[in-house]
């Protein structure tokens, strides 16, 4: 696979690179010494809640907002000094940039191609190719405002690909999409990455980062609080858990004792009838059932919990709090 990839002189140079990037708005520190990088043909996911600094970081990397200190390079171009050259090789989607609702899908694509320097004919050819690729040919002449959520997302991505960018910035690409559109979009992104496109995506969903990203950076209050592969992060911060709701009349304390005996670390929920215990693997669900059954404790309901972004945050907050000052 690697041998088949065209070798380029700058293959080893990161396509997205932020070194000690900070941004302050007045007295508010929006980004604090953020360092991250992504090699060509990889996906870097920024994970974080609203206000964590994802958008600010993307705005800096796309030269929409100047940085306060540090260095940022995209496709080898310094965003502070070479923004114009950098803009020739990037594409933006989502809240970072949007389609023109008052134009048809095709007109949106033609507009961007012409601004990039294509003549009318070449622009129309490029538009038709992309419309076909993104399954929008039937809706090509309709105004973008009449598009469904999934169609809009596809048009948005198509518009961002008009100039064959080396680096694309995807803003929460699947938020609000139905499951099949979501998978469809993931497949498109995966194909682009296979072709050597470097992707930075922001998301609130761990499963999306899990599926697409080579590296995940978790942003919280303007800092990267953790980064690594999905597996590394899950091992580091989140874990699977089982939540048991007991039948009425059964003692939650006794259930805890039983689970502790099996080497688990259960905790009684605030409602007094549920118990949550972290488990190492999904097969431990069976252990929970067996342990409780052995002690004659009846569970009314068992729920299996995947680690969520909240778990990641909670775990990271705990870790930060325990760090010596």
């Amino acid at each position, binding site marked *: 696979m690697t041998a088949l990839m065209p070798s380029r002189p700058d293959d080893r140079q990161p396509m997205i690179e932020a070194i000690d990037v900070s941004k302050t708005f007045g007295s508010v520190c929006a980004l604090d010494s953020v360092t991250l990088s992504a090699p060509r043909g990889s996906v870097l996911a920024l994970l974080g809640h609203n206000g964590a600094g994802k958008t600010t970081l993307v705005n800096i990397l796309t030269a*929409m907002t100047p940085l306060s200190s540090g260095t940022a390079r995209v496709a080898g171009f310094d965003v502070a000094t070479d923004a114009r050259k950098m803009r020739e090789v*990037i594409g933006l989607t989502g809240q970072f940039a949007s389609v023109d609702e008052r134009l048809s899908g095709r007109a949106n694509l033609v507009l961007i*191609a012409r601004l990039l320097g294509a003549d009318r004919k070449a622009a129309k050819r490029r538009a038709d190719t992309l419309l076909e*690729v993104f399954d929008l040919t039937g809706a090509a002449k309709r105004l973008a405002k009449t598009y469904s959520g999934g169609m809009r997302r596809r048009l948005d991505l198509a518009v961002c690909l008009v100039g*064959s960018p080396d680096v694309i910035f995807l803003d929460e690409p699947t938020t609000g999409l139905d499951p099949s559109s979501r998978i469809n979009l993931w497949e498109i992104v995966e194909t682009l990455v296979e*072709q050597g496109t470097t992707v930075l995506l922001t998301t609130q969903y761990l499963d999306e980062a899990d599926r697409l990203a080579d590296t995940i950076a978790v942003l919280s209050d303007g800092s990267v609080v953790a980064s690594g592969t999905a597996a590394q992060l899950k091992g580091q911060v989140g874990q699977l858990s089982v939540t048991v709701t007991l039948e009425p009349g059964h003692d939650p304390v006794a259930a805890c004792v039983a689970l502790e005996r099996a080497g688990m670390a259960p905790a009684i929920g605030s409602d007094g009838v549920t118990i949550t215990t972290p488990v190492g693997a999904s097969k431990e669900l069976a252990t929970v059932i067996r342990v409780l059954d052995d002690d004659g404790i009846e569970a009314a309901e068992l729920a299996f919990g995947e680690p969520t972004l909240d778990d990641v945050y909670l775990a990271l907050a705990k870790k930060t709090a325990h760090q010596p000052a």
Partner: protein
Amino acid sequence: MTSTLARAQGSATAIRWPGSSLWSQIMILTERSLGALIRDPQIILFGLLQPIVMLFLFTQVFANLGSTPNFPPGISYVDYLVPAVLVDNAVQSSLQSGVGLVEDLKNGVVSRLRSLPIQPASMLVARSLSDLTRGVVQVVVILLLATTMLGYSPGGGFGGMAASLFLALMVGWALGWVFLAFGTWLRRAEPMQNISFIALFPLMFASSAYVPVADLPSWLQVVAQVNPLTYAVDATRAVALGFANTSAVVPAIVICSIITAAGVIFAILGFRRPL
């Protein structure tokens, strides 16, 4: 789908264009705004609503003004009013330039365009040019209605009408840049609508637009004399009516040029601020 995508995006077929000149950027973006206007002509219709209502209402309500002592002798009220309506149309529709820009800022279109290797100022110039085109359409509609339905026939004849059209558009162009500047700094439509309603609407009345300045209460006469709109209206009216005394024309052009220049500078400065 994936194989087609590979074809579209693959490095062998990767498409890179040379970029576009500032002039073509302006033309392409003007075409975009005009295209949206043609598909959705509501903006033109709503823009025309107020001037047309004024035209028909005032010619009825103030018809007798033509016989008051301060009124220029031998001139009908319609001939007196129409040039002011042209200026009013320019004033009212200039707000739309700022509102249109704020819409593009809000819905992410500006971000998209700014992510491209183009001159950001081309977006402002394009917006201004497309609004100028809209202004021409609106002014022509008003002139057609006034001549065919209200018997507008000013002393300046066709040449006077053309010159008044030109002056009214100049006022609209200048104020359009002012609202573009407001748009780039405020980035919200509501404060601009307030400015338009609280400042421009009363300023039209506190000018020579609808009644001769001498007929205004004395305190309003003071306002009217320093009101730039008085110069705009006087100049537009003077050329339309074919007055020999066109001394208001030069100050009007000078004021418009100064306002336009200030608007351009502040709009570009405001547009440079990070999103």
